[in-house]
């Protein structure tokens, strides 16, 4: 039995998706990892979840993505979050070095933490 049943990974890079999926499963972090290749798809995915349906408890969110980046996703999610009973904990997963990004992340209350790529076992162990 893994720590979390359902984890959403918003990430455009296929290698990162594969690696994250593998490591989360290996460490028994998640039973199921759903991935969306940009923010737009992720929003659409979440919006399609039925109101009484299960919503992922954890979201790993990349920042730099085409069509809708991580920041835009966060803004969009703010708009629809009221329809969920339980809100997911969002972890930003990025290789950014821009201090502005760290500052910006603090503005979003939904963002639990900022995790620097690559996603490691240690990082996952901290999440409970």
């Amino acid at each position, binding site marked *: 039995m893994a720590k979390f049943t359902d984890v959403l990974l918003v990430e455009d*890079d296929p*290698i*990162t998706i*594969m*690696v*994250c999926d*593998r*490591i989360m499963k*290996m460490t028994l972090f998640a039973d199921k990892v759903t991935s969306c*290749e*940009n923010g*737009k798809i992720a929003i659409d995915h979440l919006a399609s979840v039925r109101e009484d349906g299960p919503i992922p408890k954890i979201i790993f969110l990349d920042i*730099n*993505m*085409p*069509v809708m980046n991580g920041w*835009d996703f966060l803004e969009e999610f703010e708009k629809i979050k009221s329809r969920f009973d339980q809100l997911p904990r969002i972890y930003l997963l*990025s*290789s*950014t*070095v*821009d201090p502005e990004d760290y500052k910006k992340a603090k503005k979003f209350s939904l963002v639990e933490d900022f995790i620097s*790529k*690559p*996603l*490691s076992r240690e990082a996952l162990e901290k999440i409970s």
Partner: protein
Amino acid sequence: MKNILNKGISLKTVSPLQLQESMLVETEEGFLVVDKNLKVVAVNSAYRKFHNLFNSFDIVPGKDLNESDFSSFPESFYCILNNVLAGETENSLLQVEYMGDNVLSFAISVVRVNEEGRNLDGACVMVHKKEIQSSMTKSNQDTEFFKLLVDTSTSVYLLADAALVFTYASNAVEVILGISPQEMLGKNAIELVHPDDREEVRDWLIEVRMHPGKLVTHEYRVKNKQGEYLWIENNARNMLNNSNIKAIVMNFRNIQAKKVADHALVRTEQRLSLLLNNTEESFIILNSRLRIVTYNKAAQDRSPFFYNTELQSGLSVLDLIKEEEVSDYIDLFEEVFKGREIEKESTFVDPLAIAHIYSHTFRPLFDHQNDIFGVFITSTEITERKKLTEAVAVNSERLKTAQKIARLGYFEYDVTSKTIFCSEEFYEILELTDTLQNWWELSAIEQIVHPDDMDVLKSEIEKSLLFGNDFNLEFRLVIKDRNEKVINAIGGSEKNDAGQIVKFRVTLQDITDSKMAILALQTLESKFKSLFEHSIDGVILSNQPGLIISANPAVCTLLDYSHDEITSLSACELLDIHSPAFSKMMEIRKIENGAFMGEIHLKHKSGHYIPVEITSITMTDGNGNPYLSTIIRDITEKKKIEKEQNALTEELLKNNQDLQQFSFITSHNLRAPVANLLSLLSLYNKQNPADEFNGLLIEKFEEATLQLNQTLNDLVNILVIKSNNNIERETISFSDIFTDVKRTIDNLLKQKNGTIEVDFLKVDEIQYNRIHLESIFLNMISNAIRYSSPDRQLEIKIRSYRTENWVVVDFSDNGLGMDLKRYGDRLFGLYQRFHNNKEGKGLGLYMTRSQVTAMGGKIEVESEPGKGTSFKIYFKS
């Protein structure tokens, strides 16, 4: 007074007991009391001492005395004593002198005592030692003194004791009154006085007694031996307190003849007096002893000569004069008695506090023998006249003062009388120490006048003297060891009716200080003037209403106005009164009292505005009128540089930001594949290389490595563009570039079934770098193809045209379009992708913008989702 006299006179009625008792107390006073038979009743030590001076035996109470006991005394002593005892006289006085080593003088008084109650009938002898003759040396002087008096004077000298009983009389008393000095002794001072005069004499004597040391004079009548009354003038001085004298000293002389003359005078003047009593002019006649003989009504009414004293015949004029003036008047009368006529002024203040000034004339009165017997004083009030003359005096004093204040020296030469007049200031200005006596001494000035100025000065004076010319000149004085003095001389000559020159006048003024001040001022002015004229900064002086009074050449040049043009303007006409800077200036000026420092714009003659920095301050001119002094500095260049600097700074800032952003993005994009590689490695099953998952990892590992390589290559390309500032330029034709690019993308275009329409007719050639331009065209066209709309056939339009500063190439398409509101700020960012299109890496537009800006151009975009996009590339022309 009466009491004093009564005391003296009533000695004879003193009771023996009282006498005895009082005498016993007064031990210095010797006394001896004897009865009718010369038996000693009482005696004191002082008497014994006295007695023993003359007699060898002692006197004791109870002893019977006889004539022999008094043998050594003057004969008169025993006689007197017997006379008293016999009742022939009540009392008697005598003086006894002892001639030993010292001359001692004793005043002896013998008084009859007759007291029924005490059964005493006898006499008392009192002895009083007179210290006036107590010492030999003193005696010599005194002897001399008395001798002199006796020998020379017709006056009588008398000494009286405190009781006013004569203790001494000089020989002259016999001449005047026929009474021997001995007879005078013991007489009371009042005894011989005429009954009518006694009251006055008593008052006089009281005064004498009351004022020790003061000489008090009185005229009165005394009886002579023959019983006739004579007028005497008695001068008395109270010397009782003087230890050497202890007496009242009197001195009297016969004034009978003078009195008779006075009376005659009074009679002769009576008629005149009648007349004179009706005149305004007052007169007073004095006798030769300065006593008032007569006076008229006017004199009485006003007493002009005296002070609050009623005039009265017989009064001495000296007693009526203010004490401090007495000595002056004595001198005056002395002169009058020498035969001179004297005028004198006096002032007195009436009860209404009005001052009256009188002029008095003192004339000697001569008798038939031409001897002066009196003084005739006439007095006239001259208050008004005095006022007039004083006014004149004040005026002349004023003139003098004015001359002093103005430091004007005055010189006058009277041609007729050949006399000169020089004012004090004249000497002071010329620093002459010796007084000039005549015209010729004026040559003294030659030594001090500056040699260069001498001729002018001389010729001007000559001309004035000869022709009456006026002159006004300045000349310098050279005074030893001193700076030069500058003198202004104004002069001229006065002519009489006949046209002859009668007077030559010059006023002198030392104008050194003002000269120096003017010189200093001129220097200062010229300094300021040159500053004003040659200053690079503009200076404008404007007055309170805002009119320009003056402007320096710098301002005129700056604004292209002539001086006359600019001074016909008001300051407002030069200002942009609608600009915020102007209102700010006015606001600050209000607070700072006209002072302002700041930047504003001034209107050039041609109408455009010039940026200037001004410093204006309110000042006050010599007359106290405020004016505004404004210093203007043209800051056009400064502004330009400032602008350039700002642009440069902005660009630098932007570049810096770009670079920072670039570094962030590149590191991000490099880290991303590296992170993948690390993750993949960590997942690799080293224990079992045959793990089937390992194969997949290797596959991904290769992919990630290639990704990293690609990213590095892209970054190198960007860095080349960014760092290569001196890119080679050549003349390139847009048409040629388009042809080359079209060849590479022709397949893509055909796949999308798109068309490209080009128009390079307006501008076709540009100085640019070929590779860059190719890259720009390629990126623009391939983007248009990549993001074409699936709903319509792709149409791309490319056209070039020229604006003022740019050559513009416009790439327009009818593709997907973008929401610029959402993506505009990120459109040209590195690795920004907006479409989920695998081909786009987010590099193209970033590269294009870098290539454009690196050559000084810019790129603009217009887009609407669903309609299409238009990029305008601006190349520097």
